């Protein structure tokens, strides 16, 4: 009789003593609280989003955003100290490492789309890129139709190669599509003349051209094949964590902090070579900053 009453009483008292924390924490928030650390997955050469600079430090636009998110998580959990661990990921390892709990956030240049949302979740879009192509100025390729019958390249397993494959079929362009292992190799194919054009996210093309031996020889097309939102990846089915991360991203956008962070990486010289991408915020991304969204549907990013 006595025991029966006491047990619930203790439970009720302990609940009252700790109003919000501990008891109701689940998923990533619980993991961060218990371990006192959060692990950020970063890319090694995704300039200027997430990469190693000349001092082998992880830097970049997405890295800055993730550090802010880590601070927000620390504040949310009322921790005195939060250790931020870094873990390099590649396009092949990011999913397993996210699923098995090695990394809690993936900060890079990962396209957010509906197919991928089956496996992971994304926070508010942090960049909007378009699928364009780079070619030698001398070749005079301006529109997608100019590519008809040409050999073109793109990085294997990207959403870009998938779109150009579809487009080639729809428009009957008869493209010979060469998949390349990575961005650097695809660009090398254009440099050496193995391919006439390299189809990729424009932001990556701009940085490849800027770093090329003779940047003046190349041109990025005006024609855009599609619009692609980039997002920071989170574990799926973890609404509590997503809410905290989304709230921080929204705060960064609404407070205008985003402008300084954006300018730092896209309008000023960035390490390691001091290249300035000189890329003002696109209209598509301004729309996201005004109305933050984590949608994976490209239609939500089109201007009209």
């Amino acid at each position, binding site marked *: 009789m006595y025991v029966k009453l006491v047990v619930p009483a203790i439970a009720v008292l302990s609940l009252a003593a700790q109003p919000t924390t501990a008891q109701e924490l689940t998923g990533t928030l619980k993991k961060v609280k218990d371990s006192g650390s959060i692990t950020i997955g970063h890319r090694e050469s995704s300039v200027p989003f997430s990469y190693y600079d000349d001092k082998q430090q992880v830097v970049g636009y997405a890295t800055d955003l993730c550090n802010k998110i880590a601070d927000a998580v620390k504040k949310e959990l009322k921790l005195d100290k939060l250790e931020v661990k870094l873990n390099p990921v590649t*396009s*092949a390892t990011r*999913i*397993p490492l996210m*699923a*098995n*709990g090695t990394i809690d956030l993936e900060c890079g240049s990962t396209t957010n789309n509906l*197919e*991928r949302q*089956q*496996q*992971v979740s994304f926070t508010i879009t942090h960049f909007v890129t378009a699928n364009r192509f780079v070619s030698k100025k001398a070749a005079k390729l301006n529109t997608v139709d100019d590519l008809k019958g040409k*050999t073109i*390249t793109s990085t*294997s*397993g*990207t*959403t870009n190669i*998938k779109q150009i*494959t*579809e487009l080639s*079929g729809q428009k009957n362009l008869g493209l*010979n599509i*060469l*998949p*390349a*292992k990575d961005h650097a*190799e695809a660009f*090398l194919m254009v440099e*050496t*003349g*193995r391919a006439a054009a390299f189809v990729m996210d424009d932001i990556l093309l701009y940085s490849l051209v800027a770093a090329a031996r003779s940047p003046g020889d190349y041109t990025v097309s005006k024609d855009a094949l599609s619009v692609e939102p980039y997002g920071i990846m989170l*574990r*799926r*089915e*973890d609404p509590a964590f997503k809410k905290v991360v989304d709230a921080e991203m929204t705060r960064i956008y609404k407070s205008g902090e985003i402008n300084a962070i954006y300018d730092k990486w896209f309008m000023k010289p960035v390490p390691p070579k001091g290249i300035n991408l000189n890329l003002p915020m696109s209209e598509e991304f301004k729309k996201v900053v005004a109305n933050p969204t984590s949608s994976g549907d490209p239609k939500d990013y089109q201007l009209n």
Partner: protein
Amino acid sequence: MNYNWNWGIFWQTSPDGAHTYFQLLLLGTWWTLNTAFFAWIIALTLGSLVGVARTTPNKWLIRFGNAYVELFRNIPLLVQMFLWYFVLPEVVPESIGDWLKQLPNASFYTAVVALGLYTSARVAEQVRAGINSLARGQRAAGLAMGLTQPQTYRYVLLPMAYRIMLPPLTSEFINTIKNSSVALTIGLMELTARAREMQEYTFQVFEAFTAATVIYIIINIIVTEGMRRLERAVAIPGYVGGRAKRPSWRQRWKTRQKWRLRRV
């Protein structure tokens, strides 16, 4: 682990609209088999020639053979593929270079040549070892019978040497199949490349690579079993490396019991 398993993914249509992911993996398998098969023919032919050259009495042939093996064996396959694909067209005259670059399926031909030459150096080493493992008297006997040097190779040395070499050649063949995956770095859409593509499109990384693993294992088991049958078919009882028909389980059990009793 927070992972959304979806084994049904193989039957979904891939972004190219025409194939399911399973069909893409099969397409990749087809290229893997083609690359490995043609590379293996090059490897076996050149490897045999170079291996034989290294056992002849002619010192220039031996030097050439040694240089060939050291060159192709000591450079990583990945680097060799890269050199053939990106560097070769730049160092030959421009017209040939442009022709090479415009070749349809250039990555396939490059992969076959690069993998064939790389493996041929390894095969050459085994051919040399196989011939050298024969008793010296064999060559002397052949020549003493009045056979010429080539005839001695053709009728005396090589028939025995190849029988000895069959098991290590099986390993080399399997290596060729597995090494063909390196060709994904020069844009060949073979099995591993298709698995990577599938994981990029769908994020179902474990399903994609499980399928690739299973396909590689099945291919290699078939190859191993085929080579084992070949070994048995060409075996000559009493010869080096040859063996009579494998005794039945019953027979082997009896033999073992006999030896056991003797030890006691």
